[in-house]
């Protein structure tokens, strides 16, 4: 199917192959992303304290044996809240990738394989959508509905559509006239079958790369919008809402803002590095 250079011969199972490649090419990316994925899944079970119960007597403590990463202005354990925030960020990731991935891939595939007028319309719409200030879309959606994680992430998901559409479209155009598509058509396969059975499997690699980069953007936007009060609402923990609370106490306990910021930066850095490494794996000559 795809041209694989001899030195990149992969182990028997493709998923195993990706992991062994990543472990060699970018152990930092694999490590960082694994930590946050584990935190998102196991967070509620391994958190040493409650994520929401307040204890004003213990407010704004620095790191200690009791509270490894200290406490926030309401005396809540920062480590426990970071575990909860990882789960929220992972949800943001999933919402954005599902919206952008499903809508964008569908639009791009149809535009690329059909061409003509449909292609023109889809290309123009994605061009307009691309680069349009995400925050304005978020403001409109939050004004119409309510501030919440899902509503904020709908705006970010809309912004992700052009990325997925562009990649899906270019793969579909490359494959449109290739022999194996012609062969399938000659054997009497329906257009839908060609789309799902022949064209889409060839997009998986490039789409995973985009998902990784747009996932990093999703985590960044979740933090930004929650910081502005348009995302996750208190008392639920999120990287952005924790930084918003920390800002008022920068003079008293700067370590709080530093710790939370390092955590969210680590997650985003891991996803960006993962995108770079996956791009190498799938032989993508990306920007």
């Amino acid at each position, binding site marked *: 199917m795809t041209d694989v250079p001899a030195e990149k011969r992969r182990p028997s199972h493709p998923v195993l192959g990706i992991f062994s490649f990543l472990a060699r090419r970018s152990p930092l990316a694999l490590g960082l992303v694994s930590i946050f994925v584990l935190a998102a899944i196991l967070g509620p079970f391994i958190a040493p304290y409650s994520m929401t119960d307040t204890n004003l007597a213990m407010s704004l403590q620095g790191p200690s044996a009791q509270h490894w990463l200290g406490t926030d202005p309401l005396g809540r354990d920062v480590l426990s809240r970071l575990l909860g925030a990882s789960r929220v960020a992972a949800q943001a990731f999933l919402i954005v990738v599902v919206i952008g991935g499903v809508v964008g891939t569908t639009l791009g595939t149809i535009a690329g394989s059909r061409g003509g007028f449909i292609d023109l319309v889809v290309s123009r719409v994605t061009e307009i959508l691309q*680069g349009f200030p995400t925050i304005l879309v978020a403001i409109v959606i939050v004004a119409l509905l309510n501030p919440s994680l899902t509503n904020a992430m709908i705006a970010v998901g809309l912004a992700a559509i052009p990325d997925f559409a562009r990649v899906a479209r270019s793969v579909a155009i490359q494959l449109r006239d290739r022999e194996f598509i012609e062969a399938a058509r000659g054997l009497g396969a329906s257009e839908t079958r060609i789309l799902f059975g022949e064209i889409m499997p060839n997009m998986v690699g490039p789409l995973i790369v985009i998902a990784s980069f747009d996932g990093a953007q999703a985590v960044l936007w979740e933090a930004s919008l929650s910081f*502005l009060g348009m995302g996750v609402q208190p008392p639920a923990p999120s990287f952005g809402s924790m930084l918003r609370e920390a800002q008022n106490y920068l003079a008293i306990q700067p370590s709080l803002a530093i710790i939370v910021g390092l955590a969210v930066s680590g997650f985003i850095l891991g996803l960006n590095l993962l995108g770079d490494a996956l791009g190498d794996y799938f032989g993508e000559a990306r920007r």
Partner: protein
Amino acid sequence: MISFLLARLVGAVVTLFFVSALAFFATAFAPGNPAAVLLGNMATPERVEAVTRQMGLDQPTGIRYMIWLRETLSGNLGTSNLSFKPVNDLLAAALPATLELALASLLVAVVIALPLGLLVAQHRDSWWSRPTSALVTLGISVPGFWVGLILIVTFSVWLKLLPSAGFVPLSRSVAGNVRSMILPVTTLAIYLIPSLVRFVRVAAIDVLRESYVDTARAKGVGPWAILLRHVAPNTLITTITYIGLQLGVLISGAIVVEVIFSIPGIGRLGMNAVLNRDYPVIQGVVLVAATGYVAVNLLIDIAYALIDPRVRTG
């Protein structure tokens, strides 16, 4: 050339039309009767009904949209539900601070990122090239607003050199204004620099592979002369388009930075309006920001066609 610009103009108008419709309908279908909000809890139902009629809110949504569009096109954006001031006045008061913040940050970002990107491209095989791109990936991954908080901790809390809030308008004191804008402008510039460096690097490497660069090299032109005379101008052209795409980041970043540093600009006005459901102000802020975004992109397209004749004829 004319048809190229005409197509761009039509695209810009269509975009703005959609945005305005979105801004109107999002707020028109939002829960709560603005008349009741305006009158407060003490109003009688009759009074609410009278004001509802007076405000035209009993009309069908389609007709209200036509009226709203007519008013907006004639430059009347309504009255704030919160401060009862005209939205026009609120926007006019907030615009200078936002423009100053955005333009200064963009200038700083370009002045730093363009030479840096060119240098990294020129010396892409040297020992410091890899650490630099690692630094760029790190820069892309760090949330801009967190950088702002770290700058406050460093320069306001620890070193006590610069204020963390308290915007001073340019009209009151130039020195005070510069002092109050150093941290916000630095924060917003850091939003832009990493991705800009990455883009300039890739664009410059593309140019360095062009045959006219080989020709110049074969004629004995030195590497620095090639960089300045051939690579820099050709890189600048594509970079201008990229800055147009980055405008969304600039607008989003400006809003966040205004909130962090309490700058009374469009962004803070908009965020207060969102959190208080002040719909006329939300519509005004979204319209002004979207118009700015579309207008600048249009200007970039025109500038692009003027600088690079290939766009016009192609």
